């Protein structure tokens, strides 16, 4: 038992619900206490797109068995497809209260055995204590496993699958748009965007792509590994953050899609000269503007690593601390972080994170909304660029790609003065 001032991640069920709400035609059944259904309110307040959250609550301990009141899990699961005609996939998320109650997951007949739709994805790997990111990753793998079509031929022209962040990720939709814009420039089309906006039909045709571009490794890792192992689809895992990261990712895509490397290079140079302003910002400012200025970066996985690398190598700041709250990715994170900082750390207690940040006495904090108190206490600028971020803009701005690097340059210019 620990005393915490807050948590970075929600429970596993929240990750599954985020994933389901990201996609179209996927409906989640949340098995939870009657007072735990906060996702619709959160979705309504954060996304503000006017779509009701595709979540149905199956209340624990409340179903009066003699009546047709909700609470009977098998009946609630089967009722979802009936009540929501457009639903093609149903996924079960169990809250920690449901997991701790020891209730067994009901068994369902094999897909199509009873002539009905596909069996619900029950996520029977859920355990109490699992974080939302890990659960979202495993749930996406389950969805891809259940729906990816077998023996599909790859497309005639080069296409890739984009595996990006789910709903609530800061600027999630804009990240996909920017990545797709750049891929189109090098002559590669997007076969499917997963999970944001993906339909079950998109999942079916995932094996047609030539490669998978992993924009947000936290959620797409297992699904892309499955596609690689079962369907031979290669992966591009370089984070598309900063000008260097974006260029490396585009060149890797070019290689995977058998493109002419000179054409990819020409596109990269053209974008560097027209769109990407981060290298210009780094060159235009005096070296003293960055030298010796310490920055602390904290967040999920892709963003702190990508931003940390860009700040350290491209801008020239001293990234004195770079951390993640994703404890299950500890080894991976520390391995990548050591390439640009000696201050890599893994911590999920906001107070201890604040302690680590305070210890390096930074002049800039790039983090989540939970770093706001420490930024205020130290009186240093905070760029809340990592999930969970409190702002909810109507117009999303990317951080990935060349467009994103220019936005990063603007934010840095504003913060560093």
């Amino acid at each position: 038992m620990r005393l915490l001032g807050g948590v970075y991640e929600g429970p596993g069920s929240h990750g599954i619900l985020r994933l389901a709400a990201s996609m179209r035609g996927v409906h989640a059944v949340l098995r939870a206490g009657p007072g735990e259904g906060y996702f619709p309110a959160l979705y309504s307040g954060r996304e503000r797109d006017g779509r009701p959250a595709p979540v149905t609550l199956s209340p624990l301990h409340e179903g009066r068995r003699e009546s047709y009141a909700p609470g009977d899990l098998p009946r609630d699961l089967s009722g979802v497809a009936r009540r929501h005609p457009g639903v093609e996939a149903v996924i079960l998320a169990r809250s920690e209260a449901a997991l701790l109650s020891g209730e067994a997951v009901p068994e369902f007949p094999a897909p199509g055995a009873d002539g009905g739709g596909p069996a619900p994805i029950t996520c029977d790997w859920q355990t109490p204590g699992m974080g939302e990111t890990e659960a979202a990753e495993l749930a996406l793998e389950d969805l891809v496993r259940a729906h990816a079509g077998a023996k599909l031929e790859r497309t005639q022209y080069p296409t890739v699958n984009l595996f990006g962040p789910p709903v609530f990720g800061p600027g999630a939709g804009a990240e996909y748009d920017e990545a797709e814009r750049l891929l189109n420039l090098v002559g590669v089309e997007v076969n499917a965007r997963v999970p944001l906006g993906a339909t079950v039909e998109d999942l079916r045709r995932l094996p047609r792509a030539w490669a998978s571009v992993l924009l947000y490794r936290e959620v797409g890792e297992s699904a892309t590994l499955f596609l690689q192992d079962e369907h031979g689809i290669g992966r591009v895992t370089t984070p598309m953050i900063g000008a260097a990261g974006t260029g490396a990712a585009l060149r890797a895509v070019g290689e995977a899609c058998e493109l002419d490397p000179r054409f990819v290079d020409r596109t990269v140079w053209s974008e560097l000269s027209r769109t990407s302003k981060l290298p210009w910002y780094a060159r235009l400012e005096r070296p003293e503007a960055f030298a010796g200025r310490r920055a602390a970066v904290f967040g999920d996985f892709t963003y702190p690593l990508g931003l940390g690398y860009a700040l350290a190598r491209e801008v020239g700041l001293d990234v004195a601390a770079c951390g993640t709250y994703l404890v299950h990715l500890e080894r991976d994170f520390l391995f990548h972080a050591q390439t640009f900082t000696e201050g890599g750390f893994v911590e999920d207690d906001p107070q201890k994170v604040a302690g680590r940040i305070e210890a390096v006495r930074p002049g800039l904090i790039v983090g989540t909304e939970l770093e706001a108190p420490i930024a205020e206490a130290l009186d240093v600028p905070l760029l809340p660029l990592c999930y969970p971020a409190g702002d909810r803009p109507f117009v999303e701005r990317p951080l990935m790609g060349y467009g994103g690097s220019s936005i990063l340059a603007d934010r840095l210019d504003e913060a560093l003065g």
Partner: protein
Amino acid sequence: MTILNESGIPDVLPPLHAVNGLAQRLPGALVIVAGTRAEAHLVRSLSPALPDPRVTFAVLDPDDPPQQGQLAGLAVEAAGRGTELVLLVCGRTASSLGVDAAFEARLAARKLDLPVGAVDSDAPYPTPGVLSTDLEDRVLAALVGLCPKRRTSELVEAASQAKRGGLFGLRGRGREEATGQGRPVVLLGAALSPGSVAGLVAELARTGVEVSGAVPDVGGAGLPPVGEGTVVGVLDPNLGTAADASRDRGARVVRTLLPIGVDGTARFLQDVAAEAGAGSSEVVRARSVWEELGALRNRVRGKRIFFAGDTGFEVPLARFLADAGAVVLEVGAPRLDRRFLSEELQTLGPGVDVVVSPDWRGQLQRIEAARPDVVVASPGLYAPLVARGHLCRPPRDFVRAGLHGYEGARRVLELLAKTFDRAEALDALSL
């Protein structure tokens, strides 16, 4: 009035969302939410960006359940110098992991020498369902448990001394009309409605009743004694457990309408005064208030209102607005305690349908079919309804505005009038 049970899944904000608001309302209180990551995430997600530092989370590890007394130890560790009261909020997950909240609270109280209340946020109600304001009820029940307990004779003495001291600075108004009040009066509720209690205290003083205190306390006056013979006036429709806790202490909980709306306030004042032994009639005052509200009533007269809220305040609000001339199409009640709200339900007009456990999809369909002028909508339905072109208002706005008493009635009508004005102004724009 018809009551239907739809046996559906209503859209209800989890009661735990109110932790931050309650912590701000209780100065000097430290709130410890014990549970897993889920509870901490829920509270953080539904709170403002910078949550109250007096709310802290005891996050339990499901693989390593806590030992007895460990939570009390953490409470001692977390309590700072300014802490006057500790509330241990434990839900279903904490009890699944073997936390005995009442025991931990007793232990922490002994170690800290401070009042420590145990709040079970998931304890079942006699009637099925959940309201987003349930935590308020539980916290108030815990506070009632922490009130000093004295015998009637002492209470009467204390009340007369308090009268001389002038509670809430309102002594002067009540004095001249005081008519030998027999029992001390305590107001219970309006935790998240600022100004409500002070307004009602003033109204009661006008009728000759001095209020000996309120739960939660107002202006740092401290918790009043609640015990045998205390007259408790319940202000909110969701306070079943808190009212029961007062009754268990021997207090007399007044069975009357809630002080929401003009007639509700008049009945409340009259019945509380009668119970306290200071009879008065509110008929003249109520009539004059209705007359004063004439212009505002004209703004809501004939407007069709659909209540799809989750706070429990919808039933008395519907009663008031129907009396004010609005057409109430439906009142959704995620949980309806018919016994506790019997007076309210009896007073609801004949044309009002109450739907218990409404299904949110059914509500959306009925709203689409009825096209009401305004929907009082729960947070999950708010954006989808606005996207479908409906005019919405969250029920929390009414609660925050302070809907109790005669002034509260005015504020409710003003809030609705403002809503209509704003919608008309936006509709008039040529985009």
